[in-house]
């Protein structure tokens, strides 16, 4: 039982990170119907930005309270990745909006290759380890919970609350939902569609940057190719939850996190990714639009 609870906590931590990345996928998909393949690499850029900021802080000051350091890392990473995603949207996706559906998919894959190789070229191909930022571990009745995990779950929860408020209660969120329903009509009614889409990319990138910072803090290491696997997992999570649905992305992220930690704990760690992907395939066979996705009605 303790073991199970332990795995549940690990899964929750992992799932929080996946969920944060998955929101970026699902939002972009919801609003322009495109798989933003570069999103995983945006996450990686966020982690790298946090790493560099951490090193700057370390070089400039002898001791910074860890909370403040994390906060600065997060904020700079959010700003920088937002700029990246904003630029990418403008350069590589916007000119292709409304053309051939596969064209933006290809530029997104191209951008993913560009980003990871850009970081490889500028920062070197090696693993970048940092000393542990937070190392406190609490043990409650045999279940150990590290402060890192608490921070991750807490930050995720706070961000999701803010995010939920933004999407559901503000005029920006309303504009986003309008663009999601019908971009042309939204434009006719005075919604600045380009701006709304840009903001969507920025929001997705900001969440990915937070996920990147948390990832760096949790694992203590990052490398240029780290965007792919979490990216694909998060995308899987978004699809599993029903792409386009925000609660679905979080739910899918948590599910993938749980599947992974449970599978590694009870079966074999080697096949944890196989398990995650297989469950995705099985779920989609029975629920072709994911768990919370709107079922696609065939229009005849």
């Amino acid at each position: 039982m303790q073991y199970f609870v332990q795995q549940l906590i690990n899964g929750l931590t992992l799932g929080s990170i996946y969920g944060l990345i998955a929101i970026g996928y699902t939002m972009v998909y919801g609003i322009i119907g495109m798989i933003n393949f570069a999103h995983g690499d945006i996450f990686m850029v966020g982690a790298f930005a946090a790493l560099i900021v951490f090193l700057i802080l370390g070089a400039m000051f002898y001791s910074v309270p860890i909370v403040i350091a994390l906060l600065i890392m997060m904020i700079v990473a959010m700003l920088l990745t937002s700029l990246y995603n904003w630029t990418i949207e403008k350069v590589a996706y916007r000119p292709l909006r409304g053309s051939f559906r596969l064209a933006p998919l290809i530029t997104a894959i191209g951008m993913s290759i560009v980003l990871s190789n850009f970081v490889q070229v500028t920062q070197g191909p090696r693993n970048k380890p940092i000393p542990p930022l937070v190392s406190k571990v609490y043990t409650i009745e045999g279940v150990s919970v590290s402060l890192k995990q608490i921070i991750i779950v807490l930050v995720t929860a706070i961000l999701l609350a803010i995010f939920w408020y933004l999407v559901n209660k503000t005029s920006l969120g309303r504009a986003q939902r309008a663009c999601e329903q019908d971009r042309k009509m939204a434009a006719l009614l005075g919604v600045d569609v380009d701006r709304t889409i840009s903001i969507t990319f920025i929001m997705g990138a900001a969440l990915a940057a937070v996920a990147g910072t948390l990832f760096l803090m949790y694992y203590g290491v990052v490398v240029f190719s780290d965007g792919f696997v979490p990216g694909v997992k998060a995308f899987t999570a978004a699809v599993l939850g029903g792409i386009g649905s925000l609660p679905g992305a979080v739910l899918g992220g948590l599910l993938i996190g749980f599947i992974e930690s449970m599978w590694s704990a009870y079966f074999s760690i080697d096949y944890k990714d196989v398990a995650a992907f297989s469950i995705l395939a099985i779920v989609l066979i029975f629920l072709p639009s994911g768990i919370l996705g709107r079922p696609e009605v065939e229009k005849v």
Partner: protein
Amino acid sequence: MAVTVSPERDVVATPVQRAFREALYAAAIALGLFVLFIGLKTDQNISNELILVQRWGLLAIVVIATAVGRFLYVGYAQPAMERAKAQKAAAPAAAATAPGFIRRNFNQIGVAVLLLYPVAIVLLFGFQGSLKWVDNFGIQILIYVMLAWGLNIVIGLAGLLDLGYVAFYAVGAYAYALLGTHFGLSFWILLPAAGLMAAFWGVMLGFPVLRLRGDYLAIVTLAFGEIIRLVIINWREVTNGSAGISGIPKVSFFGLMSFNVSDPNYIAKVLGIAQSGAYYKIFLYYLILGLCFLTAFVTIRLRRLPVGRAWEALREDEIACRSLGINTTTTKLTAFATGAMFGGFAGSFFAARQGFVSPESFVFLESAIILAIVVLGGMGSLGGIAVAALVMIGGTEILRELDFLKAVFGPDFTPELYRMLLFGMAMVIVMLWKPRGFVGSREPTAFLKERRAVSGSFTKEGHG
């Protein structure tokens, strides 16, 4: 990189003023993007701690280069392109009526060049010198041509977005590697066997995903590709895990002659010529060329058969297909299976050529590259796809050869490092330049009076 900042605001500004302002914007954005990543470099010191190395000079160069590039693009290149466009619009008839000689006979010329390529290379560089050119350029590019033509059946014709195509390539490669090393079966038996096995897996994948559409199909095929790769990595007893399988037997000359120096029927002994590794490479070149021709032949034939037309109809409108009595399930499955079969052929050839396979060769990036070649070439167009493979694969291979750049940028400069970076950029730029690929039009499969290409603006891209 072009960044458009609301051009409608500056109607009054002169082009140069506008270009200047755009350049400033671009410089500001570039500064923001690159300040942390180019200005600083994380490095490990002797005690293995990360330290920061400052590179402000490089940052300045990159930012200024971006600004200048933007200035030139907005100030000069863009107006020039618009003028050219206007001129073209003014005289459209002249361009349409007179396609050049090369364009008219593109296919024939292409086939002739491909057939004569090794001969020309041997004449130019001698047998030893030809190795690199035949292998790295000829064979390498042709493998991608074949893979892309195989994937073209699934995406270009049937309109099913498959992001896990490399899985079938892997199935073919491992089928040959395992059966060849364990049972000593000949390549000529295993080639069709590998194709059939890949086709079988194509159907296995096809069944569960038939109901899925568009992006759901994309992610499941991607997941399938990853599953196959992960199983190969982890099923160490059979596949030897990440270490891969080596010592894969070479292809024989149709069982008559061998390319192993130690064999009694070694080709040089049989024919009484000097020993050289080039014979094998040249033979492999013609082998993969033959396989490519087979793929092209089958694709062209299938397009004119009901099944091929049904694939294209499926891409255009699935519901209409069903209303005409087409069994969409079997039609999709045949597309998956046929595409997978060619992937399997290419895979077993790849294993024979390398003599070694490992899961490293079957990562998602490979699927992405193949997909990119299909889309960049123009979905459905064999010629366009071949050109795209030549440009994208050949172009990145050339980067390996640019040793003279070391003289310019110093001895530490490794052009190979930039290979994938440039590949990615090329993908983006080509797509922006030609969203429908090099060949956007579609060749009809039957005609009453005359065959006229169908403009790309009418063809659909499928939703499955």
